């Protein structure tokens, strides 16, 4: 009797497991956050298809995702402090931990072994094993009032480091995890007022803080941290009336074309152009509203920009050479995020209030197809796995 059961199990179990999981490469896959329902869609960017729907991820407002270096696992950072590891081939949650009260994003280490999460409450950064999500290090932020400073702009950097900013106390910290048992911190306390997000150049050399409380940005050269932070674009917007910001811009990724980098201005309806050889302002492009994401097509030829409320129904496309707006698309209210396919022939755009993803051909700038999604926000393709800072 027992043997028979065992044999039956032996014949069925492997079949069942395989049938549940896809057998394919993951390089043309990705996930889309459905923020209201706490679920994600696993999608195929070649077939324009939804492959699976994974539920039970908690509060996903402002959620973001990083990938394991084998591009099989997606780590989802939820607003409620949830860190969830998803197997995108099986469309299943592998592991989920509630690691903090309120988190804002995360990063995966250079060697892929550690996942770091940036928390608002309790303010600080926690580092986990990417394998089983066990806690490796807990880095509390500087005390502020009766709490700890919120941490923002967490990115991975070469030499097994993470870099992040402290919003309330205006600091930038480098966290070296070379020896996981002994995390080493380097602190810069003169970042400026209210750093709200940070980004790192694709080569992993420069970390830049966006500041809310003052004009300009703070730049850190990770090849020479001993030189400290340098203030750049110091004068942009000086003396001009600041416009209210109904959604904070995101400094995700690094929009570069040739020698110029492009950033969202804060409190001005402009995209800032910066010369990367001397970090000076090289122009400003007036746009439709407060920019949220300024994303360069992978070849740098175009910039796609979306906007904060009440202009979040629009996307503008800028020619990176002439700095002219070449197209204004009315995508629909709640246009929250954009992601280019790895080589940039398409861009996927989430439109929350239409419950859809719009896929555009970047060359013709025309809509190619739509996919259904419930209140979609972030879109994350697997090629991020191999990009520093993403």
């Amino acid at each position, binding site marked *: 009797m027992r043997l028979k059961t065992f044999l039956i199990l032996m014949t069925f179990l492997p079949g069942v497991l395989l049938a549940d999981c896809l057998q394919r490469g993951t390089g043309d896959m990705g996930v889309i956050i459905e*923020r*209201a329902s706490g679920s994600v869609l696993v999608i195929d960017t070649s077939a324009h298809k939804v492959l699976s729907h994974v539920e039970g991820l908690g*509060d996903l*407002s*402002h959620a973001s995702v990083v990938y394991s270096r084998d591009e099989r696992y997606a780590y989802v950072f939820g*607003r*409620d402090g949830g860190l969830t590891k998803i197997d995108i081939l099986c469309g299943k949650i592998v592991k989920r931990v509630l690691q903090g*009260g*309120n988190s*804002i994003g995360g990063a995966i280490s250079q060697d892929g072994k550690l996942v770091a999460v940036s928390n*608002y*409450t309790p303010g600080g950064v926690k580092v986990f094993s990417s394998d089983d999500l066990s806690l490796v290090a807990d880095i509390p932020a500087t005390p502020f009032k009766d709490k700890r400073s*919120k941490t*923002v702009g967490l990115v991975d950097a070469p030499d097994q480091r993470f870099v992040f900013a402290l*919003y309330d106390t205006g600091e930038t910290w480098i966290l070296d995890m070379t020896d996981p048992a002994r995390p080493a911190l380097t602190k810069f306390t003169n970042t400026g007022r*209210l750093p*709200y997000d940070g980004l790192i150049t694709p080569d992993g050399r420069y970390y830049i803080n966006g500041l*809310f*409380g003052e004009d300009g940005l703070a730049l850190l050269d990770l090849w020479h941290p001993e030189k400290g932070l340098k203030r750049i674009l110091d004068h942009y917007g000086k003396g001009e009336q600041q416009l*209210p*910001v*109904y*959604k*904070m811009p995101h400094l995700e990724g690094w929009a570069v074309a040739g020698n110029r980098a492009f950033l969202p201005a804060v409190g001005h309806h402009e995209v800032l152009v910066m010369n990367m050889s001397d970090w000076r302002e090289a122009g400003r492009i007036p746009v439709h509203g407060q920019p949220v994401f300024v994303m360069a097509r992978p070849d740098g030829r175009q910039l796609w920009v979306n906007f904060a*409320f*009440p202009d979040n*129904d629009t996307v503008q496309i800028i020619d990176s050479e002439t700095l002219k707006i070449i197209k204004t698309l009315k995508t629909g*209210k*709640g246009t929250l995020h954009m992601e280019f396919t790895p080589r940039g022939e398409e861009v996927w755009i989430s439109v*929350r209030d239409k419950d859809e993803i719009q896929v555009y051909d970047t060359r013709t700038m025309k809509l190619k197809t739509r996919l259904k999604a419930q209140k979609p926000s972030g879109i994350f393709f697997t090629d991020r796995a191999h990009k520093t800072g993403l």
Partner: protein
Amino acid sequence: MKCFRFATYAVLCLSLSGGALAAPTADRKAELMYLLAQDCGACHGMRLKGGLGPSLKPEALRQWDAEQLAQTILHGRPGTPMPPWSPFMSHQEALWLAQQLKEGISQ
């Protein structure tokens, strides 16, 4: 004048001029609740438990009365990322939202 700038929100301007004294209509209430979850939620968390901006749960707002909260909503807090929402809602509507926050929104 703001109504022209934010043409897509012209409806709000109408309700502002037309119904400034009356409590918001059921439709308008639904719009305000959507705004609260989605757009206030961008900074305060979709479930209002806090984000870049503080928690807007009743426990966190005990020190303010509804009128004070309405003033914060309408005029923002200069020097912080809290923006003024007066272009998008009337005093009456802000007060109604503030009361919802004080009472707690079941989600």
